[in-house]
């Protein structure tokens, strides 16, 4: 069943002024419970505007957003509940840390939900574990931690609310390759434990290829495509034309195809490329 659905969602900034701009144009899509979704689109494509609708930070100019089958704007008073069900982690979330200790910072969201101390503690320990934050860190000031640790604390704060849908806006921005892999690994761990729906916004197709069940691509305020990872990568050429980055291995195989060496399938991960080539080469007699 669809946990999150948009019906002909349109959002216009500064309507009626000279700066009027349609940021999201008639987008209809369904996200199923438990899915891991990659969200792509260049700056200005409307992807951030779109995801800000998912937890009611923006109200559509027209169209609807359904959460668990219910229109989130049907009753304005219930919008707070929507924000508990759909957690949004912004870019560079470490700038939003404010508490004296890591424990208190992670506890902020769950506390606002009105949970009791015992439950809050349980959730903090669970999410800290998912994110590889050692227990002794919990009583330290978050401002004494490294950048990567701070980011994980900020993400833990939203995860501890156990939202049915978790949206992360470029959680790996500015990290080195090892840091990127680490954060994505922690998010996967959380996903395996909770089976909650996760949306990750990323510019890196290489990262997305590693985790997403489906990929949502926005272009010029419209839904460019929303399909299984393989099918989206099969359109690598078009995707590269709308200003997104295609993995280098994909480009290599596109070049080979141009030159008449067609392997039939599209390639987007290193692992697959390596195995495919080794197999084909050994069919030709090996080394």
């Amino acid at each position, binding site marked *: 069943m669809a946990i999150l659905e948009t019906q002909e969602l349109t959002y216009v900034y500064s309507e009626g002024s000279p700066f009027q701009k349609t940021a999201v144009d008639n987008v209809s899509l369904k996200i199923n419970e438990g899915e891991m979704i990659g969200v792509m689109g260049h700056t200005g494509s409307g992807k951030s505007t779109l995801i800000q609708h998912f937890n009611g930070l923006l109200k559509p100019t027209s169209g609807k957003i359904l959460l668990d089958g219910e229109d989130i704007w049907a009753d304005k008073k219930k919008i707070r509940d929507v924000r508990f069900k759909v957690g949004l982690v912004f870019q560079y979330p470490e700038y939003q840390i404010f508490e004296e200790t890591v424990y208190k910072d992670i506890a902020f969201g769950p506390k606002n939900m009105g949970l009791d101390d015992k439950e809050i503690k349980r959730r903090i320990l669970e999410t800290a574990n998912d994110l590889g934050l050692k227990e002794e860190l919990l009583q330290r000031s978050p401002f004494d931690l490294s*950048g990567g640790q701070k980011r994980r604390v900020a993400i833990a704060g939203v995860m501890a609310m156990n939202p049915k849908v978790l949206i992360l806006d470029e959680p790996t921005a500015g990290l080195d390759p090892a840091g990127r892999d680490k954060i994505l690994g922690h998010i996967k761990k959380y996903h395996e434990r909770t089976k909650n729906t996760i949306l990750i916004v990323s510019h890196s197709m290489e990262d997305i290829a590693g985790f997403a069940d489906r990929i949502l691509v926005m272009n010029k305020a419209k839904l460019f495509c929303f399909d299984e990872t393989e099918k989206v990568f099969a359109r690598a050429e078009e995707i590269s034309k709308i200003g*997104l980055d295609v993995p*280098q*291995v994909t480009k290599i195989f596109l*070049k*080979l195809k141009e030159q008449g060496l067609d392997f039939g399938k599209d390639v987007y991960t290193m692992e697959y*490329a*390596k195995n495919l080539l080794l197999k084909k080469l050994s069919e030709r007699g090996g*080394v």
Partner: protein
Amino acid sequence: MENIIEIKNLCFSYPADEGETPVQVLKNVNLEIKKGEFMAILGHNGSGKSTLAKHINGILLPTSGTVTVDGISTADEEKIFDLRCRAGMVFQNPDNQIVSSVVEEDVAFALENLGVPYEEMRKRVDDALKDVNMYEYRNHSPAQLSGGQKQRIAIAGIIAMKPECIILDEPTAMLDPQGRKEVMAVIKRMNREHGITIVLITHYMDEAAQCGRVVVMDKGNVIFDDAPKAVFSHVEDVKAIGLDVPQAAELAWELRKAGYDIPQDILTEDECAEAIKHLFERE
């Protein structure tokens, strides 16, 4: 070619809190950078690469050892402004380095501080904005620009000072692919057309692959210093310190490891496709 930057036996530790031993961030670094070079510094977070960069224009001073730019020691307090005219720095976050509410005023900021006469300033600001393809935005507010455009404004502000070299500390880390391309194109052109020495700190291996020379830092030491082709052929070593190599290099390495005859110095997708085609064409 003569050296523009000379780093000799550079050691650096951040001051420690009471009772703690200082952590040495740079351990005896030696580097010579030639005039007109285009160099990348790679290293994972905490490897000391940003600390090294901040030594080049005297934001940080060595605990021991020396850093000179165009013959001026960074420790020479009297010449620090001279030094900073020669070595300009661009930082990661575009929003942290824009000071004015009008693009051209922002570019003129340093020139105003240097007391450059109006006519000269007008010309330098216009030229710098044209260099980074932002001339038509000269009267805009920086707040309305994209990250890539803001970074190019920051670079224009440095170019207007007519520096010998520019040090860029992860200038594309916060940009989208389009913004990254724009910034890289500008940096490369500054190097090619104006002969400005470039020191580019980056996490993106594809950017490093476009440079003439790559220095890899790990735990405060320089562990590789060579052409990108040579550095990225050490796939295992580079991966062991938490960095990536371009996928073309990695794929070629995997095939070589399996016993196939494929060149060691593959870096671009063209080279890799060519080599793979070659493997399939032989009888």
